[in-house]
């Protein structure tokens, strides 16, 4: 029997002009279709995103389990703008997700509000 081998991806540096994609649950979208600041929070020390070099918004939308894809929108943010807020953007590829990228830094009210303003919705969801 042959052991399954997981791919090991090299970490790369991400240019300022590239995009980060992030899934946003429908509860983080307000009545007028805007993204709430609560969409930009850390989980276990950082905020997970996908680098546009290795993931399309559609691929980002398919990640995660236990939820219907229709419950999520996908937003994109320019890497340079995220760095301008004092956040570190670090490629952190996972065996199953070469695009995985961490956004590291305190997500205080200022950072969250500005991320909500600067993001662009690239996959919408039907508001229920």
């Amino acid at each position, binding site marked *: 029997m042959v052991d399954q081998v997981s791919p090991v991806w090299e970490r790369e540096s991400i240019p300022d002009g590239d995009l980060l994609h992030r899934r946003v649950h429908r509860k983080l979208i307000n009545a007028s279709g805007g993204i709430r600041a609560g969409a930009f929070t850390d989980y276990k020390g950082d905020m997970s995103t996908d680098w546009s070099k290795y993931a399309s918004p559609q691929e980002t939308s398919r990640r*995660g389990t236990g939820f219907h894809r229709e419950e*999520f929108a996908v937003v994109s943010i320019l890497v340079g703008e995220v760095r301008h807020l004092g956040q570190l953007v670090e490629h952190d590829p996972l065996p199953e997700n070469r695009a995985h990228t961490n956004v590291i830094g305190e997500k205080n009210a200022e950072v969250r*509000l500005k991320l909500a303003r600067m993001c662009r919705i690239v996959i919408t969801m039907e508001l229920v």
Partner: protein
Amino acid sequence: MVSRSQGRRDIPERSAEPPNIAEVESAIQAARAMLDWGDDWDGEGSQGYSEETWQRAGDFLMSSTRELWHRHQGVVPMPEIEPGPNGSLDFHWQTEDREMLLNLPAEQDELLDFYGDSSAGEVIKGRAHASTVGPWLLAWLIR
């Protein structure tokens, strides 16, 4: 018959309650729905919301709304009450020329975190105890 106000200038009596207090109360009640979400409500592992945090958020908004009215006859614009990180709640105000996000933490001992700016370039941000800054922050929104 002589009117009680005869001979006096009629001055409109100041209402004891802000004119939008029922609307504020109703927004707080609507936000109670977040208590039913539980943990991992967004598929990203986010913490759920407690009755205690919701209660403190409601007390903060009601008392700040009343204090602003009684001190300055100011009427608080209606905020969106939104899910925040780690069981905290966000208040989000957007007026014609000002926007402010105020985060009320899940832990009572932690400080409020706020950021606001205006189209004229004013910026207001910081951390403070809820008991000290409520009416002052709301007054900034209507200045």
